[in-house]
C-alpha cells in the first residue's frame, strides 16, 4: 500500500520535475562553455531581456520641459538636464515651477510621489501616499498659481505646505489651467541621460546564471528553484526506496 502510494507520487513529481531538469541541464551545459562560446563577453541588447533587469533602453527617456531645461526620468532615475537629482517612484508624469508664499520651488511628479525641490535643486521633501497624496498621479498643472493634480482617483487642488488635497470636479477647472506636458528632449540630452544610467553591461553568461538559479524571476524564482531542488531530493530518495524493493517503474 505504501509502496503503491510512493510509486504514484514518484511518477507525479517526476512529471513536474522533468521540464526543470531539462532547463537546468541546458543552462548548465551552456554555462560550462561560456568562454568558448563567447557568452561571457557578449552583452544583451534585446530590450525585452534588458527589461527583465529593470534596464531601460535609451529610447525610454521621459522628459518634461521646465522653462528652458528638461526634467527627465529613465530607469527610475530622475535628471535635471543630465544631472541626477533622485529617484522616481513610478513613471515621471510632470514637472513645473511653483511659486509658494515664500520661495520658488520645483515640483517633480512621479506616479507614486511628488518631489519638492528648492530652486537650487535640493530635495525639500518627498510626499507620497503616507502623507495623504492621492495616487496614482497622472499629471500636474497650475491654475492661477494653485497646484492641480490629476490622479486615478480624481482631480485635486494640492497645498504642499499644509498637505491638503481638495477634490474638484473636472467641470470646475478654469480653462486657464496649464498642465505640464511631456516633450521629446534634444538628442544630445537623451544621450547624456542614457550614459548616466546605472547600467553595467548584462552578458549572456549573467542571463544563463540567473535562469539557472531562478533569479531571473526575482526572489520567487530562487524559491521556485529551491522547491525544485527539494523535489529532486525527494525523487532520488523515493527512487532508491522503490529500487531497493525491487520494483520496476
Amino acid at each position, binding site marked *: 500500500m505504501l509502496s503503491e502510494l510512493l510509486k504514484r507520487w514518484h*511518477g*507525479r*513529481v517526476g*512529471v*513536474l520535475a522533468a521540464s526543470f531538469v531539462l532547463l537546468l541541464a541546458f543552462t548548465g551545459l551552456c554555462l560550462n562553455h561560456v568562454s568558448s562560446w563567447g557568452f561571457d563577453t557578449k552583452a544583451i541588447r534585446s530590450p525585452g531581456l534588458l527589461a527583465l533587469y529593470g534596464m531601460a533602453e535609451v529610447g525610454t527617456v521621459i522628459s518634461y520641459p521646465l522653462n528652458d531645461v528638461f526634467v527627465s526620468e529613465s530607469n527610475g532615475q530622475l535628471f535635471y538636464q543630465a544631472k541626477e537629482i*533622485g529617484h522616481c517612484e513610478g513613471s515621471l508624469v510632470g514637472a513645473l515651477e511653483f511659486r509658494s508664499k515664500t520661495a520658488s520651488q520645483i515640483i517633480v511628479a512621479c506616479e507614486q510621489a511628488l518631489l519638492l525641490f*528648492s530652486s537650487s535643486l*535640493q*530635495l*525639500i*521633501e*518627498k510626499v507620497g*501616499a*503616507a*502623507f*495623504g497624496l492621492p495616487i496614482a498621479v497622472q499629471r500636474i498643472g497650475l491654475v492661477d498659481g494653485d497646484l492641480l493634480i490629476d490622479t486615478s482617483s480624481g482631480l485635486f487642488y494640492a497645498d504642499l505646505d*499644509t*498637505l491638503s488635497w481638495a477634490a474638484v470636479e473636472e467641470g470646475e477647472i478654469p480653462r486657464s489651467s496649464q498642465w505640464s506636458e511631456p516633450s521629446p528632449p534634444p538628442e544630445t540630452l537623451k544621450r547624456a541621460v542614457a550614459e548616466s544610467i546605472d547600467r553595467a553591461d548584462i552578458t549572456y553568461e549573467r542571463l544563463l546564471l540567473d535562469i539557472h538559479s531562478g533569479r531571473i524571476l526575482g*526572489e*520567487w524564482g530562487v*524559491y*521556485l528553484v*529551491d*522547491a*525544485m531542488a*527539494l*523535489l529532486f531530493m525527494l525523487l532520488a530518495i523515493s527512487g532508491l526506496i522503490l529500487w531497493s524493493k525491487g520494483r520496476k517503474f
Partner: protein
Amino acid sequence: MKRVTKQLIQASALVLCLLPFSALGKGIYLTADAFLAESFAPAQPLMESLWLTDDIRGSAKQILNHAYPGLRIRYWRDSEESSQRTAWILNEVGKTRPITIGIAIADDEIERVRILEFRESRGAEVRMDFFTRQFIGLSLQPPKGLLSESIDGISGATLSVKAVKKTARFALFLHQLVTNDKPVAGEELVFSP
C-alpha cells in the same frame, strides 16, 4: 490526457506547499492614518513641519550614518498644548529599499513603534510585536545619544533591525528638538553612529 493534467495539478499543489512563505513579508501593514489614529486617539493630531538646519543635518548624519534626504520633515503633535506627544513617519533603507516606520513619542520616551510598509525581501520580522515592543519606554541616553536600553536583534534581519534602531534614535532626537530646548544639536548630546 486528463490523467496527466490531474497529476500536474497535484504536483503543482505539492510545490506550493514547499515554497517558503518568508517572501510574503513585503507589504503595507498599517496606513499612516491608522497609525496616527491609534497614537493620538481620541484626539485629532496637528501636522507640523520641521526645517532641518545645518546643525540638525549634522546630527542626523551622525545618527543615520548618511545624510538625511530632505530639508523638511513632517510630524504630528497632540492638539492639546500641555501634551508632549509627537508622531513621526520616517523612511530608512534596510538593505536596498526603504522601510516606512511610524514612531510615537511622549515625554521623551518612545510610546510605540510600528512598521507601516516593508519593501525588502528579507527582514520583515521587524514588524512583529515581539520586536517593536522592546522600544517602548526607551529614551536617548546622554552623552552619546544612544537608546537607553539595548535591543535584541533578529537573526537574518540585521539590516532591518539597524534601520529601525537608527530611526528610533532619530525620532527621539527630533522629538526633543520640537518639544523642548534640551538637545540642540551639538550641545548636550554628542551623537555617535
